[in-house]
């Protein structure tokens, strides 16, 4: 399954000139993994949620109602994860800021 959907080939060095670079992204799927693939463009994804997000962003005008619903729920779930990430990031920033403030006061 390796390079199953590699569309731009491995010869990046040969793609000179100014052809449109719409998608020169190469994919490399480990042989022991089974990706979910986009039925519209064949791009492999690690999870159904990422596939749903991709479909909603890239193929928004052609997807079915079910796929639209899957996108919405994946987006919603991701927003929740993102809120938790932001809280952690904020905590780290605060620790960095006051940590350095204290260290500079002591040194």
């Amino acid at each position, binding site marked *: 399954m390796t390079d199953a959907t*590699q569309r731009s080939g*491995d*010869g*990046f*060095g*040969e*793609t*000179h000139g*100014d052809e449109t*670079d719409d998608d*020169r*992204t*190469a*994919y*490399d*799927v480990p042989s022991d993994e089974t*990706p979910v693939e986009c039925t519209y463009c064949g791009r*492999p*994804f*690690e999870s159904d*949620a*990422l*596939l749903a*997000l*991709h479909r909603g*962003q*890239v193929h928004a005008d052609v997807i079915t109602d079910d796929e639209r619903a899957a996108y919405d729920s994946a987006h919603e779930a*991701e927003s929740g*994860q*993102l809120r938790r*990430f*932001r809280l952690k*990031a904020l905590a*780290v*920033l605060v620790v*960095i*800021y006051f940590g*350095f403030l204290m*260290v*500079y006061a002591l*040194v």
Partner: protein
Amino acid sequence: MRRRALVPGLRAVAVASVLAAVARPVLAHGGSLGGGARESLTVPTWLMLATGGAAVGGSFLLASFATDRSAIDALLDGRRTLRLPVEPALRLVAGALGVVVLLGVLVTGYVGPTDPLSNPAVVVVWGGWWAGFAMSTYLVGNTWPAVNPWRTVVSALPDFGRSYRWRFGAWPSVAGLLALVWIEVVSPLADEPAVLATTVLGYSAVTLAGAVVYGPETWFSEVDPVARVFRYYGAVAPFGRAEDGSPELRPPGSAVSSDLLDGVDEVAFVVALLWVTTFDGFVATPAWRTVARWLVGLGYPPALLYPGAMLAGFALFFGLYLLAARLARRTAPTYVATATLARRFAPPLLAIAAGYHVAHFLGYFLSLTPALLTAVTAPLATVNPPLLVVPGWFGGVAIAGVLGGHLVAILAAHATAFDLFPGRLQAIRSQYPFIAVMVCYTMASLWIVTRPDVPLPYLP
């Protein structure tokens, strides 16, 4: 004592704040600073490195709060195509100017004053070209294709148009860049005008021969390291060219978040550009002197010390960067190939390279402006021109350059990740390894600039 001694009067730049130590390269290039800056620096080295690293990591965390795709896109758009009706005339003037300057450098290098500061070849090449012109390529836009005197000369010569082996890709230009910087470090290019002129002559011979054999388009887009440096710097600049070739105005740094590079060979050039800046400072540290003595004690030939260090350091940098690209597949997670990740996340590093260039050369350039004026008005007189004394607060501008470069790089990498990945959290996580590399690079650079400057060991 090579380029470092060219401007001995710049000690005055005070290093006030912690990160101000970043400003030291200004002096490292301008004068033998010795312990001057460190005496005024009361913060211990470990804390300074930690602060630099935390500044980069913290900027990334701040950038991670921007997850709105339309907002990120809006930041990058706003490109405006410009009309430049006089462009052919400007090109003609720029080309002629380039050729005249090249001839002037060659002539005055051989017959001009031997005092480096009075010699137009030395002052024009280092102050005018490598400091001043290079800054214009990333602060304004890359005009090198129009100015490049060798291109102008070649256009008057026949074109054999031999086909270039594409599989070499950008590697010859990587080798060329490493070789040029090696020559710059080990030879008295800034002290002996004749040596400089001979080097320029050698470069001219190679460049003209190559451009005639392979055709100027191929040569200057693929092989010539100088043209590539300026083209890559130009990607950071606000003025550039749209896909149809017409001039455009864009937000500075927005171009480095697009898919600029053709392959891992071009990624290697970006990494080499960062590495040569570091190499220049590293070989003046006591640590390098210790390593060099130890190696020679083991029987390592002294003549191969600098080429060996140049290659080993480049291999280390490139290896670490590729490792980061590999790890990004896992942290994201994603099936996007390592080569694609390496290619897409490399252009933002150009902003960092530009930032360090500002820190190195802005003060140097300004201090040399009187010498530059003299070089143009009285090219053959030994006048010992004064050095412009750069005020103490100027160190802050150098810091702003380094921080600004990092900030642009982080934002560009962020935009790149959102372009590549459907998941917002995935896009943030994909950057972890690259941010780790940036933090390490910042700390390594800070470590180098806080070491005492020692004479380069094992050089004649």
